[in-house]
């Protein structure tokens, strides 16, 4: 069942006997971006991945942002496993029986080099990893790095792995171990994520014939559509549901702040079931065959949760550094960009013949600070606290009020319109009071600014 043959053993011995310039821990979006950039510049790179193959442990929605990948693999559209390019985005605010939606669709998105695609991570990561290998990096799967090795001065000099004789030395280590990374926390260079800085998302893959997906979502060819949904589906917790179209399946899931799960006692699969049964969602997946149930954490702490990004002989990239924009549901692009910038920083240090000290590696942070990654996260620095503290207002009360007003507005029953408007306004004031409404509006505007 498992590849433990002699070929594997020889390869393992070879790898541990060699010395490398850089070790990259993790073959997700960030790790692949880093390893690819380093290998392309001729550095000797070893990349470790605990999964059977790159992607076998990874979960994403998943929207891929073309620009950030293009910076790494210019002609990726030729052979990357892309599902659909997105022509329409829907935002839904839901109560238990209805949704109020904002839809944006544009034929401009049917462009030659589309901006966003849906992907299937387990397939995409395999492809990405192939590019890393082609660039000359050594990729060792089925290997969990268990510990950072440090010298007497605390400088990181390599990693320990769970293989026999599995100590590997290198000039520096790129920690691309994802949101739940163990190495950084075990070495004390980073805190473990806390319940109020991560969301737990559960996700299912629903298979349907292509034509059915295209008919239900009003798509043709490789056009795709995504729905982001918030409201009573998260039972007052900070959270969102999503529905993404792939060629022959639909990715459907919901994620909520871990701290809110523990306080409400809701089950993740219970939420998923309720989302699936919602009258706006059920017809979209009717008759589908589910082929996978996955769960994963998403960093939600934003700017204020970003840890120390570099040190003696190490840098941290992607989700492991909480580089995730929960407001815009962007993570993989921040991961790819931080991985690439970390690699470029290492290349700069190396090309000067300088040692991988914290001072020298600090250019990684400077580069990141100037990129969209930190600038976006800084813009929303107060959003997580607002959403997490006032979650019941934003995820329960307002969606219910909006639905009530919409229904009131649309039902034609002889009530004069002015009276209807007054009724709707009264509901808002009754639920939240004038000062409450004003407070929420001001808080939201401040955090958004």
């Amino acid at each position, binding site marked *: 069942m498992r590849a433990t043959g002699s070929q594997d053993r020889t390869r393992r011995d070879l790898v541990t006997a060699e010395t490398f310039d850089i070790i990259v821990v993790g073959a997700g979006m960030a790790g692949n971006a880093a390893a690819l950039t380093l290998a392309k510049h001729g550095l000797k790179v070893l990349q470790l991945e605990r999964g059977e193959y790159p992607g*076998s442990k*990874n979960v994403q929605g998943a929207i891929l942002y073309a620009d950030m990948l293009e910076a790494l693999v210019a002609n990726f559209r030729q052979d990357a496993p892309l599902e659909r390019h997105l022509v329409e985005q829907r935002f839904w605010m839901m109560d238990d029986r209805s949704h109020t939606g904002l839809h944006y669709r544009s034929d401009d998105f049917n462009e030659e080099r589309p901006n966003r695609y849906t992907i299937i991570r*387990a397939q995409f990561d395999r492809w990405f990893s192939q590019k890393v290998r082609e660039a000359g990096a050594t990729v060792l799967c089925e290997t969990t790095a268990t510990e950072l090795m440090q010298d007497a001065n605390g400088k990181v000099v390599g990693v320990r792995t769970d293989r026999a004789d599995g100590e590997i030395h290198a000039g520096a280590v790129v920690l691309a171990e994802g949101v739940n990374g163990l190495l950084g926390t075990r070495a004390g260079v980073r805190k473990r994520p806390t319940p109020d800085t991560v969301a737990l998302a559960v996700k299912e*893959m629903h298979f349907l014939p292509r034509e059915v997906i295209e008919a239900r979502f009003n798509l043709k060819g490789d056009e795709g559509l995504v729905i982001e949904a918030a409201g009573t589906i998260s039972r007052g917790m900070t959270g969102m549901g999503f529905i993404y179209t792939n060629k022959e*399946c639909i990715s459907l899931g919901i994620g909520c702040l871990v701290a809110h799960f523990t306080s409400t006692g809701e089950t993740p699969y219970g939420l998923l079931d309720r989302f699936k049964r919602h009258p706006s969602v059920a017809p979209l997946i009717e008759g589908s065959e*589910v082929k996978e149930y*996955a769960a994963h954490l998403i960093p939600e702490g934003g700017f204020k949760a970003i840890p120390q990004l570099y040190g003696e002989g190490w840098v941290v990239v992607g989700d492991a550094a909480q580089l995730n924009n929960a407001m815009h549901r962007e993570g993989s692009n921040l991961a790819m960009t931080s991985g690439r910038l970390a690699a470029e920083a290492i290349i700069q240090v190396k090309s000067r013949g300088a040692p991988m000290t914290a001072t020298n590696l600090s250019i990684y942070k400077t580069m990141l600070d100037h990129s969209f990654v930190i600038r976006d996260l800084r813009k929303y620095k107060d959003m997580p606290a607002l959403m997490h503290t006032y979650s019941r207002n934003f995820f329960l009360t307002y969606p219910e009020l909006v639905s009530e007003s919409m229904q009131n507005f649309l039902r034609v029953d002889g009530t004069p319109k002015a009276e209807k408007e007054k009724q709707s306004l009264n509901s808002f004031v009754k639920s939240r009071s004038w000062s409450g409404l004003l407070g929420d509006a001001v808080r939201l505007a401040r955090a958004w600014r």
Partner: protein
Amino acid sequence: MSTDRSARVEDRLFYNRYLLDPGHPHIKVRPHTMPSSELVSMLTTCPAHCYVANDKHQIEVAVDGCIECGTCRVICEERGDIEWSYPRGGYGVLFKFG
């Protein structure tokens, strides 16, 4: 209620592919007489329903269906309620789609 719930999760886990590593559980619950509220919350929060209460109201974990999300680590590790690691390389859940 709870049997109904766990049956439904188990049906879901049945879709997934796993490579089990018998004798090497990657998560262990520290022996206790009274579980902490954090540990109790795992009965509902674990997306794979790996945590169950025994007849002495202690909490146990069965890692076979674990999807390695790390939620229990985030909630319980700091207090020392559990020991959490990744499975050995190559073992555990293997997503086909992810």
